């Protein structure tokens, strides 16, 4: 299958079940909400190395936030609800509570909730104040610019991590241009994040390593410099650069839609091929076929 001059490889992205949440960070001014959001999503590219994956979903106008101030919507994913809870407590405590004028609210209505503000409140050392309004509980923690308001609980739900596409370009320049177009298109989809820097990752990995202590290592199959001698290369002739875009989403539909838009946006002159990363189909719960996406088919869900 081709889109214009770009070949779409008949393969699938192997995605995994994760747990996700959404937090709404607000502040007196957009720059402070953004500062907290940048901080809270720092060092959160891969769940393997960072314990969670997080990113900015979108910027919110004042009329979209619970307290009527400018805000940012952030998604965070981990392997299980406890992992989400622990990362939220760490990151909201260290990166949002510390940022001037901010407040942090739950942005996901879900059947399952984890306690966040209910743990952070102890920072108030007995001076914290609990408030209940409209079925939600909030904590007011005294800080040096007034109070930090944080939701007692945050919703968590089963989510999808590791949707991806691999863009193979003739040059680094053309590949970056395509990746940029793809990330811009993907970010229009609600409920997803692209956890890597700028939404793009160059160090695609495979499971395992010749060094026993490493759980993952460089995916030589997509390293253009190794095409000449590495076993099992997937780098097509004439390709000088491969970039990956990883997508995490609150739902499979959102991840699929992001991948579909990304495929279409990345297919352009200078891009020889677009493929997807998988592990042979044995590890991930979801197999998202690229051809199926373009034919508007839903992804195949691996039977468990």
């Amino acid at each position, binding site marked *: 299958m081709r889109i214009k001059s770009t070949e779409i490889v008949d393969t699938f992205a192997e995605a995994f079940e994760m747990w996700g949440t959404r937090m709404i960070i607000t502040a007196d001014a957009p720059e402070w909400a953004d500062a907290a959001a940048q901080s809270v999503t720092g060092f959160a590219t891969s769940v393997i190395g960072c314990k969670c994956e997080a990113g900015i979903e979108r910027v919110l106008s004042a009329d979209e936030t*619970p*307290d*009527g*101030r400018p805000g940012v919507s952030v998604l965070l994913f981990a392997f299980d609800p406890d992992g989400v809870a622990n990362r939220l407590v760490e990151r909201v405590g260290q990166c949002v509570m510390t940022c001037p*004028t901010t*407040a942090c609210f739950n942005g996901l209505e879900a059947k399952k909730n984890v306690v966040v503000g209910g743990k952070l409140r102890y920072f108030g050392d007995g001076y914290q*104040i*609990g*408030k*209940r*309004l*409209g079925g939600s509980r*909030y904590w*007011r923690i005294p800080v040096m610019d*007034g*109070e930090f*308001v944080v939701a007692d609980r945050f919703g968590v739900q089963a989510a999808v991590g590791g949707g991806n596409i691999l863009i193979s370009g003739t040059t680094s320049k053309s590949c970056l241009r395509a990746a940029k177009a793809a990330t811009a298109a993907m970010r229009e989809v609600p409920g997803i994040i692209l956890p890597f820097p700028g939404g793009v990752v160059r160090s695609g990995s495979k499971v395992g390593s010749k060094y026993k202590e490493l759980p993952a290592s460089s995916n030589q199959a997509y390293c253009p410099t190794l095409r000449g001698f590495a076993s099992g290369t997937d780098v097509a002739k004439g390709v000088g650069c491969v970039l990956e875009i990883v997508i995490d989403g609150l739902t499979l539909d959102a991840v699929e839609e992001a991948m579909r838009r990304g495929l279409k946006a990345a297919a352009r002159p200078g891009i020889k091929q677009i493929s997807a990363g998988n592990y042979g189909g044995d590890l991930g719960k979801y197999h998202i076929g690229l051809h199926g996406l373009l034919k508007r088919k839903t992804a195949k869900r691996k039977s468990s």
Partner: protein
Amino acid sequence: MSLKLTLKKKPSVPVEAESICPDVMEGLDLKQIAALPLHHGNEQVTVGDFFKVTGKSNGEIRLEGDTSRFKMVGDSMSRGRILIKGSIGQHVGVHMSGGEIIVAKNASDWVGPEMSGGRIIVKGNAGHMVGCAYRGGQVGVTGGEIIVHGNAGNEIGNTMRDGLIAIGGNSGDFTGVGMLAGTVIVLGKMGWRNGAAMKRGTIVSMEDAEMLPTFTYACSYRPNFLRLYLRHLRDAGLPIKDAWINGSYHRWSGDSIALNRGEALIFDR
């Protein structure tokens, strides 16, 4: 179609009408509803003696006519809705735990005493003791919301422990007396001795207020949590100004004769 109770004759003395409650009336046919007991002075009467009963029992009750002498409507209500087209007597929503009561005109004293959930909206004025504990009780309101669009009398939120009471107009003396927690918001002016003996909780007023000498001034600041409350009340129909949402408030701590963890937030004009 909801159940409609239309007043046939105004009682000569107050009527205790605990039976007028969705929990009691739901699932009954019109004949059974008309036969439910009311207490008219020292005499037991029936709903049918005072009301024409029409419609269908589906969890919503409409009261039509001047029901200002009917007390304890919505007693222990846990679900459903009562729409009162006129005024209502004392103790409306007593011990309520869920559902919604809307009073189109005025409510007498003791609106929602010791309620634990649900919502009462009074479009007119309310009397004394809105959201209070009964005399001798240790704890008043433990949850839910009471929103009065007009004025209210004395001792609003006496010993409340949780929930929200909002008064669109002025409140009388001893607003928030003995509060244990929860939130009282008065958009107008409060009377004297507000927050006396309060342990915790929040009293908010948009007008200047004379604080008791046992309250200590802290600072003027912008309480972000209040934005949530004021936006919530705006959605509920109270005329909340943007200046109140975005503005600063003087924070007073008190009452030092009690735990001293309560607060009064007075809009800083």
